[in-house]
């Protein structure tokens, strides 16, 4: 009672002191109950995360602990992230044994040498365009600690999905603006991507300094992600939006006199033919922006990606994958002159920078039954993609660093 009166008196007489007291109490509680959050410390500008940064943090930590391993990093869109597949059917989970098996087979003649452990990391998220992949590749390059061991034990698979060259998916040209800081600080490029101009000037430097140091030392700033994950299940804005959208949907269903539907119990691996898709739904995704047009932003960024991948090929071998497309569903759309021009342009772009390219968009081995829609794969499709990737990655993994340097 007396304590309550005291608090009330402090609140009324010294409101600022009262607020500071609460903040101090919260800071102490956070320090006592939560561990430091390396994700926020490494990227204080995005306290709730940015483009699979958690996996990147784990990769950096795993490489720092010195275990002998081969790391394969998948950077790309929802096809590489396998967002439509349940656990156990994801590409990363299938690629790991496929690659281990091939490495074992290669090391069999020399019984003394045991192949290193293979780890596959998915730094991918739905809708990642060439700009996102380019920025994520640069972020990976800068996140890896300088180490005495050669970086040859890390290879990257960067994906390029042909749908992002279409007029439909032209905007936004960069789906994850939080990665913008990893792009070249070129105002024209930022304007082309619809991003604010790159921050310059003393205040920008001060902000970076404050973010870095305050996030490291003040738990009220550092623990935002932990708290959001515990209380909301994820970043607050996404959680709020999802809650709002599901609330509106529920309300609309109630207004229509329907009961809110429980989450679907249908087989998540059922192919596109069981989902009622038609070619017309996807036609706009293959209406390619003319490559010489100033609006062909994704192609221009793909050229930059090829250049970047070519430059780091000696340190971080990078394989570029053009994702498989559903031939049966898309049919004639993949035979149009503009589409054919795109695929040949992609081939010549990456060849010009000596970047290995695995072009699977017209690979007929990917049967129609292996697709969930126009490009997302079923478990069987992911299995075949893992096999194709493992075969393509093997030469990169086995080539000694000096050989590649000599090639450079």
């Amino acid at each position, binding site marked *: 009672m007396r304590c309550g009166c005291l608090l009330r008196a402090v609140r009324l007489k010294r409101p600022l002191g009262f607020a500071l007291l609460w903040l101090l109490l919260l800071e102490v509680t956070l320090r006592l109950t939560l561990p430091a959050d390396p994700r926020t410390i490494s990227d204080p500008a995005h306290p709730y995360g940015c483009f699979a940064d958690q996996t990147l943090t784990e990769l950096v930590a795993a490489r720092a602990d010195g275990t002998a391993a081969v790391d394969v990093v998948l950077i790309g869109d929802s096809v590489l992230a396998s967002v439509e597949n349940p656990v156990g059917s994801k590409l990363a989970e299938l690629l790991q044994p496929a690659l281990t098996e091939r490495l074992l087979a290669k090391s069999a003649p020399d019984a003394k040498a045991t192949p290193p452990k293979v780890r596959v990391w998915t730094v991918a998220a739905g809708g990642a365009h060439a700009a996102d992949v380019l920025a994520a590749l640069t972020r990976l390059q800068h996140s890896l600690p300088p180490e005495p061991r050669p970086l040859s034990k890390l290879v990257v698979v960067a994906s390029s999905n042909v749908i992002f060259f279409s007029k*439909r998916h032209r905007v*936004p040209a960069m789906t994850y603006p939080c990665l913008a800081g990893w792009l070249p600080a070129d105002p024209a490029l930022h*304007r082309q991507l619809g991003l604010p101009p790159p921050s310059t000037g003393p*205040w920008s430097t001060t902000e970076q300094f404050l973010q870095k140091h305050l996030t490291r030392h003040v738990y009220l700033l550092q623990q935002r992600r932990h708290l959001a994950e515990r209380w909301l299940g994820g970043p607050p804005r996404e959680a709020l939006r999802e809650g709002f959208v599901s609330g509106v949907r529920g309300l609309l269903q109630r207004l229509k006199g329907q009961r809110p539907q429980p989450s679907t119990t249908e087989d998540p691996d059922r192919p596109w033919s069981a989902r009622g898709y038609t070619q017309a739904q996807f036609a706009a995704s293959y209406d390619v922006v003319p490559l010489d047009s100033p609006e062909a932003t994704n192609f221009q960024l793909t050229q930059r990606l090829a250049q970047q991948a070519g430059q780091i090929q000696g340190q971080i071998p990078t394989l570029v994958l053009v994702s498989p497309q559903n031939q049966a569903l898309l049919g004639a759309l993949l035979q149009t002159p503009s589409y054919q021009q795109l695929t040949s342009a992609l081939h010549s772009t990456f060849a010009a920078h000596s970047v290995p390219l695995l072009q699977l968009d017209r690979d007929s081995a990917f049967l129609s039954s292996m697709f969930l829609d126009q490009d997302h794969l079923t478990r069987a499709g992911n299995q075949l993609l893992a096999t194709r990737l493992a075969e393509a990655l093997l030469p990169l993994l086995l080539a000694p660093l000096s050989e590649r340097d000599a090639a450079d």
Partner: protein
Amino acid sequence: MQLTSLTFLAFVLLLLPVHGLLPSRTRPLLLLLASLLFYAGAVPLHALLIVAMALTVYLGGCALHQKQSRALYVALILLCVGVLGYFKYWRLLCSMLDFTATGLGWQALHTATQRLQIEDVRIPLGISFFTFEFVHYLTDIRLQRLTSDRLDPAGAAPSPGRPSLRGARDFLLFTLFFPTLLAGPIKRFQSFGRSFTPTGEDIAAGLARVLLGLGKKVLLADSLASMALRLSQPDQTTPHGLWLAMYAYAGQIYLDFSGYSDVAIGLSRCLGYRIPENFNWPYSATSLPEFWRRWHISLSSWIRDYLFIPLGGSRQSPARVAINLLLVMAACGLWHGAAGHFVLWGLWHGLGLGACRLWRRFRPAPTAPSRLLRIWYGVLTFHFVCFGWVLFAAPSLQAALQAVARMFSRAH
């Protein structure tokens, strides 16, 4: 420096105690230095530009005060509007000329516009706001609304209206006052001059207002922003998604802008200045004219005082008033951004205001409308405004029209 950044927090936390400790006569100087630092920290060259402009306007204002010269007034207004036009509208003007020249096959004009086109020009922060404040200052001197006592409310200058260091300081502070520099409200010199010594209650109330504004901006507006983003991709969104995005954008733009205004008003109060209110529950308006009396009040009152009334105001023929409303609102749209969809947004509101005026002329408003009728008017007004936001939020004129067409289509 964004108002939601850590740098701004540190800046304010350092400034407030120093401001409180200084004697009241030196506080304006501290605030002026702080405002200069605030502005120069972003793009130092732009700070030079704004200071040069402010000093020119101040000296020109003094000259106008002493000698009512129409030519000088026009020259100063042209200078202010010209600088705004160069930074904000030059590219639009060149591209429009180029489009016309290409369409008509005038090669010489096409070549000339190509040569005149400027790339990568960075717009000085707050230029739209301080240009309007300059126009207000010069016009009020010209119309003798800013008399000697108002030019120097403290009566400390040796001769009010004549150039003095103190007058220049006050005018520079009026122009550069950092809480309102980025997003308004658009101040009036008459009321800005009356500063006071903030009490503990003022500081507590001001900080509470700042917190309210930050909450609106960070928690609500930024959360709605991701939903509203779909308006910029109409061809990738279902009609239902576009409707949802429209409502989300209506919420986002109000919360974002009123949040910034709250921060500016609260912070100004902590520093001993009263800044005009900018929003008064605009979505509760039951007519479009009422909406504009509640939305971005400092801008709508500026447009009324410095554009609409000089064009003749309401005392003209109905047709002339309607044309004036269209012109004024198109200019309002253009002020928001140099693109066709902003002009279309302005014209949409101009049409709405004109239609309201004509409607009321033929059918006067009931003296005491029923509650149900008021709700109906409110819903109509809100949706009229929301459709305007679709035009405002789209990245281009084509995307805006596509979004509106898709909202009423049956496509999925």
